């Protein structure tokens, strides 16, 4: 590519690319910067003057969140049900994805499409029945209820991604393991799982992400004990006087867990978004 004759042309192209990328990155970061900026201001400053950086930066908004149980319990609740959901989704999806990637069976295609239809269902459609179902079986306002409800869209997704990664592992590996006398569980845990561990990581990341960002079902199924942080935020936002500083600080804190986990899967994330089938 880098032949002398092409040098200038290539440099021009690289420059345009870099420019496009930088403009878009700025577009992504500016609203986030403004959120951070607002979270460091007092409400008086936010409402009275217009400053690109707080005149008197304050961490009071964050302090409120970390000391008031009605705020920080929201984060704990969210993390609990998200973790439950991720573990449960992976546990049921792993064997199913293996079956889809290795065998044909009666109704396999229909089953796969049916799973995907659940990814297509608007949560609003199931809002009321969910509420009634979980009330009836006595699970409303528990973490497990939200985790179960989120499995509706996370399990199909997990099966989809894992199946893509598993199909990339040649079947000869399974057969060789059986000839070598491995039992199925031992083969699966010792040989197969390590081969697709990046796939498992990526899937866990996606389950985490979609459970973390969902609000509608999480809010409907909880009232006090398991109320997620996103629901607490909307409640505060609808109060008569807007507390912009705290709202912004709470927003900044909801971004932190995502930003942390994304770092661990950064090298696989692109493939993960393609559901493992590139």
């Amino acid at each position, binding site marked *: *590519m880098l032949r002398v004759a092409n040098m200038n042309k290539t440099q021009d192209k690289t420059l345009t690319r*870099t420019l*496009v*990328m930088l403009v878009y*990155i700025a577009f*992504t970061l500016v*609203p*986030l910067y*403004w*959120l951070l900026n607002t979270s460091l201001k007092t409400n008086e400053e936010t*409402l009275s003057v*217009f400053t690109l950086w707080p005149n008197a930066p304050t961490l009071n908004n964050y302090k409120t969140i970390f000391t008031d149980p009605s705020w920080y319990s929201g984060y704990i609740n969210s993390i609990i049900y998200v973790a439950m959901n991720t573990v449960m989704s992976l546990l*049921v999806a792993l*064997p*199913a994805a293996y*079956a889809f990637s*290795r*065998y*044909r*069976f*009666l109704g*396999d295609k229909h*089953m796969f499409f049916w*799973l995907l*239809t*659940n*990814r*297509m269902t*608007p949560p*609003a*459609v*199931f809002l*009321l*029945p969910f509420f009634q179902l979980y009330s009836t079986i006595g699970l409303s306002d528990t973490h497990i209820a939200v985790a*179960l409800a989120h*499995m*509706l869209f996370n*399990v199909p997704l997990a099966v989809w991604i894992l199946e893509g990664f598993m199909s990339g592992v040649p079947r000869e590996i399974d057969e060789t393991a059986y000839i070598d006398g491995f039992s199925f569980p031992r083969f699966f845990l010792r040989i197969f799982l390590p081969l697709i561990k990046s796939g498992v990581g990526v899937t866990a990341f996606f389950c985490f*992400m979609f459970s*973390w*960002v969902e*609000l*509608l079902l999480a809010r409907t199924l909880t009232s006090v004990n398991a109320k997620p*942080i*996103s629901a607490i*935020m*909307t409640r505060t*936002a609808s109060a008569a006087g807007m507390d912009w500083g705290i709202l912004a600080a*709470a*927003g900044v804190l*909801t*971004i932190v867990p995502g*930003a942390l*986990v994304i770092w661990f899967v950064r090298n696989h*994330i*692109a493939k993960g978004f*393609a*559901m493992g*089938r*590139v």
Partner: protein
Amino acid sequence: MNKPYNNKAWFFILPVFLTVAFSAIIPLMTVVNYSVQDIISPEQKVFVGLDWFRDVMRDSELHAALLRQLIFSFCVLLVQLPLGIGLALAMPHKGWKSSATLVILAMPLLIPWNVVGTIWQIFGRGDIGLGGHVLNLLGVDYNYASNPLDAWLTVLLMDVWHWTPLVALLAFAGLRSIPDAYYQAAQIDGASRWAVFRFIQLPKMRGVLVIAVLLRFMDSFMIYTEPFVLTGGGPGNSTTFLSQYLTQKAVGQFDLGPAAAFSLIYFLIILLLSFVLYNWMQSAGNNANASGGQHE
């Protein structure tokens, strides 16, 4: 592709089937059940047949919401697909720059949806927001809370901010899977940049682009939380999309029967449109591949 046929595989599927069925089939049956009854109180229910469906089909507010929804989803695809592909082509391929770009791009995807609404609220307001403030300073009479057009553009821009990275990451994954040999061959043939894109990169991205179109279509068709926080569906009804209208009916007014009938119709619309889109893109891709094959 010749996988062995083995019905015992069903034992592996069973846990998934049971958990998803619990969260999908029972609620779906409840919705079907409601959609044909008039629920006056939990003890008093009257079978009304298809009356609710007739009502819903004639509901002019619903027609308006559906039209808005279709226009919105169309705009979303129109903007985000080309932009996402462009970004994927511009992304650095290696080193820390590539990692950093990926992480920054993926950030909006990990923000809870109501916080996305909050971010744009804080950013877009004329009094406290950078975006709104700068526009007003430039003499643009911008106010998303009172002007329907401004509200629309803000919701669309917010969705572009939120979801274009998904398309970009998908397209990027597709591009990374193309072996270098393809590019070298194209260079020997003296292929133009456009020809490389049209005959190598685009066909190779087909699979991931199908996923991108489907996901963006389905998700934009269910959009609820972000406009709910940002505009609350207003001004007037100008940004009330289908999910919001449905939630108003089901939870706000507690019209269970009509809401259930509406739910079923809504679900069927998404299913149908996704199915059509999927088949259309598959066949378009096959044709492109066929004609690409003649060039080789």
